[in-house]
């Protein structure tokens, strides 16, 4: 894949396996291959969207990037340095550069801390500011995300879902990060509130020059916010490309099926379009199918697909997909 100077983060052959204890006597341990050989890069200032069904490993990828998990194998190169094997102490400066916004705005805020303390905690930990200066930064952050500085003394239960997600965003911004991992930041919110949060995220990106990894299962929202989109299936990226190109000319049968499954809020289009219905469910990531992982649900599957795994192929500039049909 092309490497230019402005690549902020590059992931090479990232793997994350979770061990499952099997049997009383230990025996042979099985592994859930949540992320299995994933490579991609993100340029400075761009948004990469990551989509896929639940269990495809998109959240695990995000959590491994921020080193909440230790990768099983592979490299995470951030700003030229491999952070995949660093210990906690070495990671501290990177914790300031990489931040995360979580899915559930109800579970990700400590109910016993005031909003001011929640946002200010990171400032204490990284010794950025104390006392009056800290209060000022907190107030500034609150008004930046559309809340009032008076809210700093209130507790999370006094806020609605959309407001809590704003608090989560303010907390992530507190340490002036360069890169934010947004793990399903809007899926718990109402439709009318989703648009508020998404617009705010893109305004902040413009103002502060942020880079985003945007993880979601809502494909239409991902297209809206992302410059490039990667589609994951059972721990692998099956297709990645510029979002316009990927949505207009999906190459992988899985991407095609995924796009055709989105409910369109337009009755005429709904009546006239052909839907590709995928049979069955996603197979277990403990024993993924041999060869191409999508072959068990793919309508074009050939004998070859079961034998050797297809490799990523460049179809057009910057648009890659892994399928024998191409």
């Amino acid at each position: 894949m092309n490497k230019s100077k402005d690549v902020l983060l590059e992931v090479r052959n990232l793997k994350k396996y979770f061990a499952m204890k099997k049997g009383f006597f230990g025996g042979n341990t099985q592994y859930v291959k949540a992320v299995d050989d994933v490579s991609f890069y993100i340029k400075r200032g761009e948004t990469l969207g990551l989509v896929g069904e639940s269990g495809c490993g998109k959240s695990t990828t995000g959590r491994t990037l921020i080193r909440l998990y230790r990768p099983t194998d592979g490299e995470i190169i951030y700003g030229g340095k491999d952070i995949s094997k660093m210990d906690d102490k070495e990671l501290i400066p990177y914790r300031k550069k990489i931040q995360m916004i979580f899915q559930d705005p109800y579970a990700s805020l400590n109910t016993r801390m005031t909003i001011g303390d929640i946002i200010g905690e990171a400032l204490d930990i990284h010794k950025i500011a104390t006392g009056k200066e800290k209060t000022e930064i907190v107030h500034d952050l609150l008004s930046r995300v559309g809340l009032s500085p008076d809210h700093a003394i209130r507790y999370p239960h006094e806020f609605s879902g959309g407001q809590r997600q704003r608090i989560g965003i303010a907390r992530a911004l507190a340490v002036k990060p360069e890169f934010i991992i947004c793990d399903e930041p809007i899926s718990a919110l109402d439709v009318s509130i989703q648009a508020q949060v998404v617009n705010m995220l893109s305004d902040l990106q413009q103002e502060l020059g942020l880079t985003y990894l945007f993880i979601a299962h809502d494909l239409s929202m991902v297209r809206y916010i992302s410059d490039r989109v990667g589609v994951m299936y059972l721990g692998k990226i099956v297709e990645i490309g510029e979002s316009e190109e990927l949505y207009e000319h999906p190459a992988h049968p899985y991407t095609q099926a995924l796009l055709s499954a989105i409910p369109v809020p337009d009755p005429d289009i709904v009546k006239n379009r052909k839907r590709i219905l995928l049979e069955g469910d996603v197979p277990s990531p403990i024993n993924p199918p041999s060869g191409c992982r999508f072959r068990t649900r793919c309508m074009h599957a050939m004998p070859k697909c079961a034998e050797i795994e297809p490799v990523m192929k460049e179809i057009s500039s910057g648009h890659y997909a892994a399928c024998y049909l191409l």
Partner: protein
Amino acid sequence: MNKENILEVKNLRTSFFTHVGEVKAIRGVSFNLKKGEAIGIVGESGSGKSVTSMSIMKLLQHPGKIIGGDILFKEKSIVNTSEKEMQSIRGNEIAMIFQDPMTSLNPVYTIGNQIKEAITRHQNVNREEAKNKAIEMLKIVGIPSPSDRINQYPHEFSGGMRQRAMIAMALSCEPSLLIADEPTTALDVTIQAQILELMKKLKKEINTSIIMITHDLGVVADVCSRIIVMYGGLIMEEGTTEEIFYNPKHPYTMGLLKSIPRLDLGENQRLVPIEGSPPDLLKPPIGCPFAARCPYAMKICEKNQPPYFETDKNHRSMCWLLHEDAPKVEVDTCVKRGKI
């Protein structure tokens, strides 16, 4: 009551008497449902759409109470029926599918047992017949090898299969009304597509009336022929699916349509959110509940609750803008006919 209607809800009002005061969750809701028809109720959380369905099922839990209005099911009022009578209607004539298939199945009974329970409870059949019926239902909803699956427990089923099992259970007594409360919200898009296709197929084959409650306008566009838009415990707008999407009259409906990204329109559009947040139903606004967030709000909107204005035979909206003296408002909702 109109003979064609299977369900008539008349000026229904439901409140929750909490320790901080009366939360007026539904403040006068009326609608009809014809036999074999599918209607969608859309709205955001707190708009009263789920409380409407719980009131119809009479599954409201303390401190919730129906305080006014009437619900006629098959020309009979069910507001004052006893719990015993309700039990023979619930599951048998009115069935419900819940949002979360993970928590609405009992984990300690097999799938087969739970479906059989629904059948033997309401129909006069022996165990063998009930078992065969359960297998048949699982087959109809598309679960492979149903005679083995019937002996498995919910944890052995995937999310989509659990929702199928729920549908099988709901339809096992061939109910004349099916209430689906966010049936696909917890599922992935590919599984959602499977379930929606299944519901459309079943509607055609069994001729069940469906009330589909959801916040996803794409889902109702697919399944329902008529849409009710709720906000702040009231119906803001009601009309055929085509009318609601292509000719919305209420600013809230327009706002909803504008705040969803459209795949088919490309990237250059910016989402237009509805600013602010929903009203507090402990102290509901005196006027139009949407007035505080409405870009076209006038003085009268805050003082008086608007009546329904009928703009078409099957299209009514609660908005002062439709009054003949109100200024005319032109809004582009991006959804237009005939561009595919």
